């Protein structure tokens, strides 16, 4: 016999993401899913962000990493609410891992006002998996080159904010900020773009203010 299913293989992930969104909504937690290439500066920016926001807000972090807990260690000074997920080679986080943490292993994550997720360093796969986040953020460092938005458009198309990082290195690399901004605007006209540097702190305040405004909107 032939059985027509027309069943989407990412449906399970979509359902878990919807569950997560509901739980986060009930607790008023703003979840921020951060993705970008290996070494684009996710953890460095999180350090600077937590440094600025932790005096005012309860913050938590889920650190996705293939094998190590090094990034989680770097964030310890700013919050004790850090959970490490080692994917043992898997290239992205999935919504059911996050759901498992929220409902079973680490329900105290729901006491936070902002929950950051550092996704696995990868510009392709994480974009395919909704985690139930309120906002998806894609980082692009100036050292990666101008062509990355054109080469990996899907990572930039389906995101709410694009952070152009390591701005302090702009003079040393042939990254054309105007051209990149233009390309990004064409690929994703809705996204906001923040150029910034975790090293000098330039632009970090603006990004933090934006997060605060999202949080206020959510908890209103």
């Amino acid at each position: 016999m032939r059985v027509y299913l027309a069943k989407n293989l990412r449906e399970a992930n979509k359902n878990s993401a919807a569950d997560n969104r509901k739980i986060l909504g009930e607790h008023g937690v703003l979840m921020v899913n951060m993705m970008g290439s290996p070494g684009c500066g996710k953890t460095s920016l999180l350090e600077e962000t937590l440094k600025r926001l932790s005096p005012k807000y309860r913050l938590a972090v889920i650190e996705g990493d293939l094998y190590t807990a090094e990034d989680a260690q770097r964030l310890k000074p700013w919050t004790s609410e850090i959970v490490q997920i080692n994917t043992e080679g898997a290239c992205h986080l999935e919504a059911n891992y996050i759901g498992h943490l929220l409902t079973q292993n680490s329900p105290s994550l729901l006491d936070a006002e902002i929950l950051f997720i550092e996704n696995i360093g990868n510009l392709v796969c994480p974009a395919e998996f909704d985690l139930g986040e309120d906002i998806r953020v894609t980082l692009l460092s100036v050292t990666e080159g101008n062509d990355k938005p054109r080469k990996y458009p899907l990572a930039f198309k389906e995101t709410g904010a694009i952070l152009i990082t390591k701005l302090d290195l702009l003079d040393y690399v042939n990254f054309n900020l105007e051209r990149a901004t233009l390309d990004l605007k064409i690929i994703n006209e809705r996204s906001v773009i923040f150029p910034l540097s975790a090293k000098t702190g330039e632009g970090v305040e603006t990004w933090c203010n934006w997060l605060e405004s999202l949080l206020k909107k959510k908890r209103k």
Partner: protein
Amino acid sequence: MHELSIVSSLIEIIATDAREKGLQEVTFVRLIIGALSSANPRAIEFALEHAKSGSILEGASFEIVVEEAQSKCVNCATLFEPQLPFLMCPSCGTPSSSFEKGREIYIDYYEGE
């Protein structure tokens, strides 16, 4: 390499459905992979051959069809095959349209007895 997670969810969905219908074995599966789904058909095929052993799909063969992507212009509603990165509408030139087809991976049907 998220092909493995796609494949394990395929096997789980079909195995559950086949068991509910009282089938003994699954012989054939037709799978549709969107051209812009970020999954590689060959890698899926390879993963399937490995993952099926020991399951109700052990003896199954697979047909994998790549579905062309389709976009709809946000401005003039023209349907067209999108060219990355800008997804420019061929009739009015507006960029950044949404996808109608080609981002998903789904099971069309399976056969069993």
